[in-house]
Each structure stands twice: as C-alpha cells, then as structure tokens.
C-alpha cells in the first residue's frame, strides 16, 4: 500500500473537485514533523459521493480539513471547479468557503452552545446576503420541526438531532461539496441509520456532492459511489463501492472488510488478520507503509513504494502483491 501516483485521476473537465499530491504536516515537537497526509490524490464528479475509510490516524480528517484550507495543506493542489484553492488568501479564500461545507463527528461541540437553532442555521445566509429566509425549509428537510426547534438551543437536543442541525447549517449555503467527517461515529447505532438515511435523501433531493469519511467500512459502503481506502497518509485502493466490497484487492482493504460483523465476505483469517497499531507517522516504514502489518509482505515491499495502478474497471490499487488471483504484481523497474 502506501501508494503514490495520479493515474487514477479523471480528466479535469469531468470533475468538480480535483486533489493532487496533497501533503499535510504538523509540528511534532523537537523540530520534527508528522506527515499526516503524504501525497494523496483523488477527484470527485458532480453529484458523486466519495467515501474515505481508514483507521484512526490515517490522515483522512487531515485531508478533509486541508480541502477547506483549515489549515491549508503543506503542498499539493486542491481545485474546485477549476479554481486553485491553495493559492487563495484572505478575503478571496473567505469568499470561496461557502462552496465547501463540513459536518464534524461531535455534533455537540460543532454547535455554538449560546445560540438558538434559528441563529445557528440562519447566520450563514445572513453573512452572505443570500435571498429569502430558508431556515424553516432546511430544518424541515433535515427532519426537524421548525416551529419547535428553531427557538431552542443545542443542549436541548440529542446527538442525532444536533447532527441534523449541523447538516441544515451546511445545506442552507447551497455548497458545491459537503465534507462529512465521521458524521455518525458519535451516534447510537439506531440513530446512525437515521442520519445515513437522511444524508441519502438529501443527496438525491439537492444533488449533493459528498466526501464521506468514516473509520467503519460498513457505514460508508451504502452511501458512497466510490470508496478510497487510506493507510498512514497514503492511498491503498480506490474502487466503486460494490466492486471494492466484492473484490477487495489490497490486503488492508480485505482486513477492513473482514472486520465488519456479517460482512458477507468469507475470507480465511490467515489472509486478513492484522494486528498491532499502525507505525508512527513521524517515522513511517520504507517502501509500502502497510508492510509491517501485512500478511503478504515480501522484500520488495520494503524497498519500493507501490504506485497506484488500474486492476479493473475504475478499480485502482497501490500494492505489489494484491490478494486478487487474476492480478499480477507490477513489472519491477530495471535497477
């Protein structure tokens, strides 16, 4: 895994959002840096939902926040509708912000506890001078009763309801892309299903383009058109949702699928069992970053970083020794 490369990107005029070679770094003390995202590329067509999965610390949230330039990435390119966001500063950047909206994991801390729901949802359109008062309409769309909900404050709502308010606040700005960063991870399972259902409804109703981040493949697979699997700041595998679930090629993807209870994929444990914690992103392994936990790792994995290559219709993979029988290892470059 730990793949680099951009061969999986589609032509520029077909996509709404195009991210190339995204690198996000944070200071780790004593002059060292953590490279949370190291050279990730992906794109998003209008109306499409991209799921991003990976375990905690794989860089999926850092990548999402770098999309909205909060904080801006260390390097790389983020193009929304052809406009380079990383080049924008100050007022110009602020003016584009409306087009990218986010929903966070913790529904409570996402809302200013001192505001009433009407102020929370209505502030965005007021700041941007958007015509008309759509607060009631949007609250209804997310399944809240405007008459009773609008005058209350966040602490009077449950987690699921707070998440609905967050969604309403994002939707009312008519964003081009909505980035959902673990939007259901903090919720009860029954509420998770409701929020996922709501997001699917809204996706159809408002033709939303979504980036959907989760550590749980089971949550992502039904919502997403395509799924990208990340590990330690790199891309492992990218494929249409159904294809990824039925034909996982990367050992890490297979491990993730095997971890879904009743995942429907019957894989031998020897092939899918991974143990231990991911290595420190301050000092990542050479070559393929997954090799230290991979049941299929060989010498080549330590020496050479796998590049992203096509292994099926719109199915992309960064692995030297994939788990699919019909996929050969890539040709080793002459040294």
């Amino acid at each position, binding site marked *: 895994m730990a793949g680099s490369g951009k061969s999986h990107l589609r032509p520029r005029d077909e996509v709404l959002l195009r991210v190339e070679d995204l690198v996000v770094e944070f200071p780790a003390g004593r002059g060292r840096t953590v490279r949370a995202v190291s050279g990730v590329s992906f794109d998003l067509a209008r109306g499409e939902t991209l799921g991003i999965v990976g375990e905690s610390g794989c860089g999926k949230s850092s990548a999402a926040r770098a999309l*909205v330039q*909060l904080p801006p990435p260390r390097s790389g390119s983020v193009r929304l509708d052809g406009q380079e966001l990383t080049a924008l500063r100050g007022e110009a950047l602020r003016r584009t*912000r409306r087009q990218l909206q*986010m929903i966070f994991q913790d529904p409570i801390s996402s809302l200013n506890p001192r505001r009433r729901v009407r102020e929370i949802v209505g502030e965005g359109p007021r700041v941007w001078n958007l015509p008309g008062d759509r607060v009631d309409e949007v609250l209804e769309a997310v399944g809240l009763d405007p008459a009773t909900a609008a005058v209350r404050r966040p602490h009077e709502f449950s987690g699921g309801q707070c998440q609905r308010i*967050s969604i309403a606040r994002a939707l009312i700005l008519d964003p081009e892309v909505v980035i959902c960063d673990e939007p259901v991870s903090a919720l009860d399972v029954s509420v998770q299903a409701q929020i996922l259902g709501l997001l699917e409804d809204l996706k159809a109703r408002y033709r939303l383009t979504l980036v959907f981040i989760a550590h749980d493949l089971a949550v992502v697979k039904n919502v997403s058109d395509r799924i990208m699997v990340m590990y330690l700041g790199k891309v492992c595998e990218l494929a249409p949702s159904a294809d990824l679930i039925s034909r996982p090629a990367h050992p890490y993807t297979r491990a993730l699928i095997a971890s879904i209870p009743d995942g429907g994929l019957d894989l031998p444990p020897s092939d899918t069992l991974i143990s231990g914690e991911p290595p420190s992103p301050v000092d990542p392994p050479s070559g393929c970053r997954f090799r230290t936990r991979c049941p299929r790792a060989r010498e080549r994995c330590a020496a050479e970083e796998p590049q992203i290559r096509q292994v099926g219709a719109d199915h992309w993979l960064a692995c030297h020794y994939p788990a699919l029988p019909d996929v050969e290892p890539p040709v080793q470059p002459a040294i």
Partner: protein
Amino acid sequence: MIILHRLVRLVVVLLVVTFLSYALLNLLPGDPVTQILGMSATEESREQLRRELGLDQPLFVRYLDWLGGLLTGDFGESYITRMSVGAELAERLPVTLELLIAAEIVALGLAVPLGVAAARRAGRALDQALTALSFALLSTPVFVLGVLLILIFAVTWNVLPATGWTSLSVDLGWNLTSVILPAITLGCGQLAVYARLLRTDLIATLQEDYIILARARGLSPRRIMWRHALRPSAISLITAIGLNMGALIGGTVIIETLFGLPGIGRLIVDSIFSRDYLTVQGGVVLISVGYVLVNFAVDVVYAAVDPRIRRA
C-alpha cells in the same frame, strides 16, 4: 428561590465578618478613650468616659447592641467625632465606588482588546510581549506603580493632580482628572490578570469545532472572534472579576491613602488607628455587602453568557 438563598448567605457572611472584625479590633491594645483624652488623663475621667460611651460593657453585649442598631439602619456614632457613622459612610461611599468602577473600566477596557489580540496571534511576538507586560504589572506593587505614575504625570509632566479629590457633583472635568491616576494604578494589576485569563480561554475556544465550522462557512475572523468566541471564553474572566473584588477593595485602602482620596478605605484605616470601632464596623459591613452583591451579580451574568448554566 435563588434570591432567598443568597439573602440567607449574605446574612451569615455579615454576622461572621462583623463579629470577627469587632473582636479583632477590641483585642488590639489601646482604646478610643486614650485617643480622646490623651495619655495624661486621670483614671477617673477615663472610667467616666468609658461608661458614657458604653465601653464598660462586655464585648459580646456591645456587639449585640451594635447589631440591634444595624437592624434598624443605625450604624451608630463615632466615638471620636460623635458624628453618625451612617452619614460619614454615605459621604465617602461615592468616592470609593467611583474609584472601583473607574479601575474596572480601565482594567476591562484594556484587557479585552489585549487578550483578543494575544489569542489571535498566540505564541507570536505580540503575544509574548503582552505576556511579559502582564507579569511585569502583576509583580509591581500598587504603591510602587502609584508613586511612579505620580512622578511621571503629576511631577514631571504636570498634567494630572498628584493628590486630592473633586466631587462629581462639583465639577465633572476635575472629577475625572482626579480619578484617572488612582484608577489606572488600581486597575493595572487587574488588567494583567484579566488579559491572561481571557487569552487562555480564547485560545481554547478557538479550537472548538464550531469555530472551525464558522470559518468554513466563510464568516470573517472579526465576526468569529467577537460574536462566537468571546462570550464562551468570558466565564473565567467574569469569575475573576467577582473574586478579585475583595483584592480590589483592599487595594482602595492603599490607593486612597496614596492619592489622598476621601473614600471608605482611608476612613477605615484612620478609624483603626484611632480605635474608632463603630466606624470600622460600618465600613466592614458596607464592603462585605458589596462583595456578596458583586458575586451575586456575577452569577446572574453567568446565566446570560452561557445559557446552559441556567439549568444548574
């Protein structure tokens, strides 16, 4: 219900504070009789004056007697001047109140913008400069700062009076010039504390999800800071305002003496030296009532700042 609760607390505080101060003063050597008659008076005349003043009664009886008068709004009479303590306090209270309010205005008026500026650029040069300044202010005793300010503004530049007081009712302009230096001197110590507290809380608030999401919605940094971040970050600051009120009132004693202001603080100091027990008691009552009221106001402000506290 809350009001009632507070009233009970106020009464308890008053009882404890006034009894302790009464007892403490009486433990000091010397008494008002010596102050009035001088060292050379005969023992008979002393004894007679003691009886007239009621000082021959046991301590506890005198305390209860004074307390009974207080219930009817009577603060008693000064042993020394024979004037009504209530009238004396009423005359001096406005001076101290104005000094306190002016000091808080100076402290908050500077602490909020400075705290915001420091939090916005935490760790940068401005923040570090303000941190250094805060510690410098905190470690400078008020009397040193006061003398320094007098030296600069009154002696060297001669733009403000060094001492003295013009009442608000006499002349507004002169009143303000006489309150500026004392207020700055008294407010500076608070300023440093307030600015530090606000800076720290703001830095924490600015990392909240809803602040990041507000930026994602494209709200201007100014709007986020003043409309979204400031109020939630003000809780420690408001608490400190209430708690520091005691220190501030204690500070007025020094400030009023230093700048020659006819306020409660100086009255209490003078009365302690002349063993004028009842005047001291009156001042103590006023200060403890003020302290409890301020902290009650702080609790009310909490609820306004953070609606979640209303349920508690």
